[in-house]
């Protein structure tokens, strides 16, 4: 019944390839769009995991990113702007045997859909969420989004936005997320690894992908476009490993805690033992939250699994409760329920 099982369970059928997960439709994203890369990795992970396409459903909202389901040879539902989590919730609650994915954008998930996002996370429904964050409204041709940088000039903010960007990972943690990861479209291996981790998590797996939109938002992605930039601007989290980063192997850096606050130090100056060691599975989300607050240019931004803990899922509890109540009351007797506790007879 759990998605994890159906992910790892091998079917009799022959092993599928990433190609088998592509629908007949040609992907309609701009050349160079990061969505392509996510699409490739997701298919790869699904094929590798031996998932059956017919047991997999991609649900999306509206946006460039939300075209995703059309290009997958699985079941799919391109729903309404912001509403993918709602449709996915009904689907997964009705059919806990299915693997349900939500693909969404920064506008879709965080602007119009913010409430559904936090509620699906709070309920810990066993679905995987891929948030493709290009910090712009792509489909509607370039307005700022809730993740756009303060001051950014866009079609709807010609003099610069005056809104403050939200940090998706922080919001997810604030809503009680059991799994939060972050990755980058251009780092396909890491991206693939994160997607795979999501398939293994029971409960809501939330992955933010830094996604490039070469058409409407060239700048936002500069910090992570190439490997060099990434190693300077990102810190790759690994469970049980100290936080280190840096583009120059001769001058690696690390993160240390000081008075409950992170601090960038040079490895040359500080013993490795002093560095913050990542623990994705600690019970409190406070550490993950602290990491989520590290941002350029003062800090490298953490990518990897920020948090991964276990908590009963809504779908499991739904069916456990049904079982429990059925055990307690016996299976429903329709005639008895129609008649109710208080009835009387009229005879002819």
């Amino acid at each position, binding site marked *: 019944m759990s998605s994890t099982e159906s992910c790892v369970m091998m079917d009799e059928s022959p092993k599928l390839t990433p190609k088998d997960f592509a629908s007949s439709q040609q992907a309609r994203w701009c050349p160079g769009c990061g969505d392509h890369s996510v699409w490739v990795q997701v298919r790869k992970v699904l094929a590798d995991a031996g998932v059956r396409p*017919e047991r997999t459903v991609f649900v999306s909202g509206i946006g460039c990113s939300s075209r995703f389901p059309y290009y997958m040879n699985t*079941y799919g*539902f391109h729903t309404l702007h912001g509403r993918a989590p709602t449709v996915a919730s*009904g689907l997964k609650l009705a059919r806990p045997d*299915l693997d349900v994915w939500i693909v969404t954008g920064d506008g879709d998930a965080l602007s119009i859909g913010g409430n559904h996002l936090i509620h699906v996370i709070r309920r810990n429904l066993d679905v995987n969420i891929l948030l493709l964050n290009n910090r712009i409204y792509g489909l509607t041709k370039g307005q700022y989004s809730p993740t756009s940088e303060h001051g950014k000039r866009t079609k709807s903010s010609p003099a610069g936005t005056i809104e403050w960007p939200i940090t998706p990972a922080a919001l997810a943690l604030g809503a009680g997320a059991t799994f939060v990861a972050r990755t980058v479209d251009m780092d396909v291996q890491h991206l693939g690894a994160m997607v795979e981790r999501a398939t293994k998590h029971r409960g809501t797996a939330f992955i933010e992908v830094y996604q490039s939109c070469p058409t409407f938002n060239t700048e936002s992605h500069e910090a992570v476009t190439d490997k060099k930039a990434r190693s300077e601007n990102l810190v790759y989290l690994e469970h049980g490993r100290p936080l280190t980063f840096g583009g120059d192997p001769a001058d690696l850096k690390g993160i240390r805690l000081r008075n409950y606050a992170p601090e960038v130090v040079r490895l040359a100056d500080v013993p490795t033992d002093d560095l913050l060691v990542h623990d994705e599975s600690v019970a409190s989300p406070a550490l993950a939250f602290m990491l989520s607050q590290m941002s350029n240019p003062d800090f490298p931004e953490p990518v990897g699994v920020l948090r991964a803990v276990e908590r009963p899922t809504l779908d499991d509890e739904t069916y456990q409760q049904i079982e429990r109540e059925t055990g307690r009351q016996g299976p429903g007797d329709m*005639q008895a329920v129609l008649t109710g506790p208080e009835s009387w007879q009229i005879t002819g």
Partner: protein
Amino acid sequence: MITSGNNGGGQGKPRTPLQTVTIRFAGDSGDGMQLTGGQFSDACAIAGNDIATLPDFPSEIRAPVGTVAGVSGFQLQFASRDVQTPGDEIDVLVAMNPAALKVSLARLKPDGLIIVNEDSFNAKELAKADLPADCLDGALLKGYTLYRVPMTRLTQQAVADLGVGAKEADRCKNMFALGLVCWLFDRPTASTEQFIRSKFAKKPQLVEANLKVLGAGHQYGESAELFTHRYTIDQAPQSPGTYRKITGNQAAALGLVAAAQLAGKKLFYGSYPITPASEILHELSRLKNFGVVTFQAEDEIAAMGATVGAAFGGHLAATGTSGPGMALKSEMIGLAVMAELPVVIVNVQRGGPSTGLPTKTEQSDLHQAIFGRHGESPVVVLAAASPGDCFEATLEAARIAIRYMVPVVVLSDSYLAQGAEPWRVPDFSTLAPIPVTHPTDPATFKPYQRNEELARPWAIPGTPGLMHRLGGLEKQDVTGQVSHDPANHEKMVRLRAAKVAGVKLQGPGLLWSGPDRGELLVVGWGGTCGAIRTAVSRLADEGVTVSHCHLRAINPLPADLGERLKRFDRVLVVEGNLGQLRGLLRDRYLVDAAGFNRIQGQPLAVGDIARAIRETLKLRLTAEGANK
């Protein structure tokens, strides 16, 4: 003949038989009037009377104790004949405090009977209700028969030796009133006794207290000199069978579960609480042992989205709400239209616009149900005609939704939802199954290939080889791929419209009474059915013959409706709105339908409808006279 239920004792005082009585229990919100009314309704129903009830709690939150705003009322009509409404005017008023007396007087019959809790008519309480100190003796109550019963005192006496606290003792006084009224109308108290026993199962002291007080009230009637005689109301002629009392919300919940069972499906109900629809969620959340999945969503949009998702997953999927929630659901209902998925949407209407009168009844969401979405976005709209009919209507809705792969809106209203009537329990084994097929053959499957009834196939995730993508973008005919082709769009718009236009009900699309041609046809829909039917039969008693056509199907309208309308000289559409159905009929049939419209948050009064009918007929005569 009644086989269950016992008649309470007391043979002493003389009895006057009556045909029908409308009684109203009124008191402060804390006085337990809803419970009292509900128990008395049970007693009457079990005794074989026909009944119709109207719970009536005015304000949203608990209003200041003792004020007019804080009055909670429960009205019911019980009779030895067919009863269709809770009654326009009150025969008997039970008033637990001055405020309750004050607000209820307006609807009391000139020769009505009043029972007051005399103890509450003290200076403080009278002042709160802004009534004169001598109100029980003064001109205010002239013409009425007044019984002053010191209920508080008698209640306290009754429990004196039980050691219950003063506050708890006071809480029992509604049982005194109930016992007394049961005596007065010779209704059985057994069901209430049973209720008390189970309700306070864990507090034996309270069981004893309440039973004692109930008995004391009954005994008081028999022994006090105040009451010289009592009344009896015979059993109403009812067709044989098992009966229960049912409210519209209970019936709607049961209709949905029954539909799921008949379809061999599990029920998914996604909803966000809202008055007066919440009880459907409450009822269904108790039926987990039927495999019912209830999902209390974060809002109505999410409730609707989840319903659509569950339908995609292959459940019988339904949601329920009231007007403001319908507004929020409208975009998502549009997606269901485009995706052609079977969903049932129950709208329990309340007073609008906006937050309006949230605890009052109204019929003003018809336009919204039919037209309240962008684009050409047709859905099926049904309307329940009585509390019990909410069962049939939701069941019918599920049948249609599945058969035609289409969203179906069921319009109920606050009055139906909370009002109760005796309901003949259907024999479940005789209800027709709902056929469901899910395609499985990849060779022949096309997501938007239609059958003769224009329904597309309901392919569900998990089926090998049938992977397909749904969505809100226009679909290509047959393949269901996204299509921007102009001609295809027109074709699809017309196909969706044709599908809905061609929907056929299993049950009746309209309820008819009276001759099929004549001078005047009264048309109604929804919760006004009982009132119109009563008005029409009252006029028949006066020798005035008019026909009554009550619509259960509003979109599409019954196929023969146009024909039927044309056989009458005049059409009068009676509605609890400003004429929403009337506009539809005028547009569709070009019939110069007149309207009788009342929009006061109350069920329409029989008397008002009868008057409107008389006036319409008179007008017509005058007009004819003028023409000659």
